[in-house]
């Protein structure tokens, strides 16, 4: 075990995989000389040279497609989309090509491609740079989508993604890059398609992924202290495939669920999670599944507006208390009425 940041875990894993397999190489905008917009690839150009760490022109569709074509011939490109917002310009190559080639040609060529990209918000980047559109990829058969919430998962899921023969959208998060955690030293890949119960509990199931799984853990700990609540936290980790079994199993035990997500509520990732719970745990659920998500507006630049539009810790706490109140669970008096942020 070593304690390191989410950023460090990504950097070290990329480096280790490049050392392990000559077919692994990196492509993206400003990942070389500039060392990456968020410095994940810092130092790798110097170490591996331009062949393995390729700065591309600003041409998302072109370089993503080039990575797909290279993957069809057996290379294992790991590309960086500077932020997930810009991946929209490569959507045709990713969805109409990377996700289709294996099936459309009857299984003759696979596309071992990893697309690393950060989602996020809360940095005052405005309407076009603050979107969380992992849904676009999670919706598409042929894609795999993973979303680590901590440094250990960042390593284990990146290992799995690079060694997988299908296109994997690897969702990172601007707000997580500097977060720290223990990371195992061995190279055991995680299993794509599996969620994790990161905290066992009996009162309510709190579900999240990426930054929101991180927040969920924090909120659960806090409510254990403040309200003596025993909350189970499920970190989805994989958005496609979605691990319904683990989610439903948990809710069958807790009888209540709250979903935290960084994207917009209507049609967001949480919609499928809530629908699946309401179906699979129909006879166990004591209150509606509550979703806490981003306000449905083009994200404003002004700080107070952005803050109001983003789901906060207090929003999560209120949602949990309201849900527990609805199922008849008694929160400690002390806990009532956390002001709305």
């Amino acid at each position: 075990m070593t304690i390191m940041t989410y950023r460090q875990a990504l950097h070290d894993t990329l480096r280790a995989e490049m050392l392990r397999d000559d077919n692994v190489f990196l492509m993206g905008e400003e990942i070389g000389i500039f060392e990456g917009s968020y410095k994940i690839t810092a130092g790798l150009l110097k170490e591996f040279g331009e062949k393995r760490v390729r700065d591309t022109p600003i041409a998302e569709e072109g370089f993503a497609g080039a990575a797909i074509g290279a993957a069809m011939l057996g290379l294992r490109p790991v590309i960086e989309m500077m932020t997930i917002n810009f991946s929209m310009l490569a959507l045709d190559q990713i969805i109409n090509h990377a996700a289709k080639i294996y099936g459309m040609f009857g299984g003759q060529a696979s596309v071992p491609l990893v697309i690393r990209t950060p989602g996020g918000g809360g940095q005052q980047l405005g309407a076009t740079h603050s979107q969380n559109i992992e849904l676009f990829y999670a919706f598409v058969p042929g894609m795999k989508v993973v979303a680590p919430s901590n440094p250990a998962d960042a390593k284990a899921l990146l290992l799995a993604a690079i060694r997988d023969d299908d296109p994997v959208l690897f969702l990172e998060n601007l707000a997580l890059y500097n977060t720290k955690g223990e990371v195992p030293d061995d190279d055991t890949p995680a299993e794509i398609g599996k969620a994790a119960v990161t905290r066992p509990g009996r009162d309510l199931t709190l579900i999240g992924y990426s930054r929101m799984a991180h927040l969920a853990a924090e909120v659960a700990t806090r409510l254990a202290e403040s309200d003596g609540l025993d909350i189970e936290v499920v970190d989805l980790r994989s958005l496609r495939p979605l691990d319904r079994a683990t989610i439903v199993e948990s809710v069958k035990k807790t009888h209540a669920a709250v979903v935290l997500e960084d994207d917009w509520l209507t049609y967001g990732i949480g919609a499928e999670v809530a629908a699946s719970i309401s179906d699979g745990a129909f006879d166990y659920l004591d209150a509606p599944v509550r979703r806490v998500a981003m306000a449905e507006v083009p994200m404003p630049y002004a700080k107070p507006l952005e803050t109001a539009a983003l789901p906060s810790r207090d929003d999560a706490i209120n949602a949990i208390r309201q849900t527990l109140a609805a199922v008849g669970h008694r929160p400690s008096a002390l806990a009532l009425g956390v002001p709305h942020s």
Partner: protein
Amino acid sequence: MPAQARRRRSAPQAPDRASRDREVQLRAFYRDMVLIRRFEERAARAYTEALIGGYCHLNLGEEAAVVGLMSALNPTDYLFTNYREHGYALMRGIDPNRVMAELYGRVDGVSKGWGGSMHMFDMTHRLLGGYGIVGGQLPLATGAALAIDYRGGSEVVMCTLGDGTTAIGAFHESLNIAALWNLPIVFVIINNGLGMGTTVAKASAEPELYKRGAAYRMESARVDGFDPVATHEAAAKALETARKGRPYLLEVVTERLRGHSVVDPARYRTAEEVERLKHEDPLQTFGAKLTADGVLDPDRIAAIEQEVAGIVTAAADFAASSPHPAVTTLFDYTYATPVANDSRRLPGQPLFEPLPLPAPSGAHA
């Protein structure tokens, strides 16, 4: 196998042998053009008989272009095309039976019936796909060239595209990247004068399409796509240049004799145009020329037609008798690496344990 493929193996020759070989090659070109022509005509018929579905785009009028280009490739070179690729598949040496079976959507098709007319793929013959999204093949082909370069290989990628495709962003991004990185790739514009019904003049501010290579300092040229020999030579030069790491843009000027796809009556064409096309047929032109030069004669032509008719009929019979894919295979090609919790649910199946009433059969997540 395409007749011209045999030619490739012939060793250096004495002058007299050489001129005989040349005649053999010319006849081979003609024979291959006939094969494409008759194959496409048969496909059109099968479509009207509802044996083929979806979109079906034919190479009618482009036979000389296809033959000239494909004969210049090494067997180890890679090919990416658009959705109008039946003739290319045949010329890469793929068994006509398997090409027709793909059109019929059968298990013996080159793409096992999953791709159809627009999506033929065969790794052994290095046809890396017909693609239905306009321009979609360009970034992919560029990436294949990148992989060759990455491994220091000597193969070249050829990527064909239509005239209408030069207007799309992927064209620009791909040519810029290929030129910037000195990739071994030849982009070939098959200029048949039309998108669907839109002329080059109405789609491109630079109607001399090959000149667009200049924006990338990419060598480029234009050739008569009704002349298989000229096309072959232009392609050979382009491939040689690309093999040295200098990508190339080749424009092949040809005609589309029928509608955009089998179902398009092409009403947008003027009477004069329709009339003109009656006399502009690469097969007729080239056949007449070879006959005049004494390379072909009515008997030889008849023999070729007979051989080809046999191949095409056999292909249709083979396709018709090849089985349809079984519904049980529906979930076989979503992922190359099996993954936990993959959805393998038919539309009628519930998300969770089936309810009392008789539930549909099939896999279950």
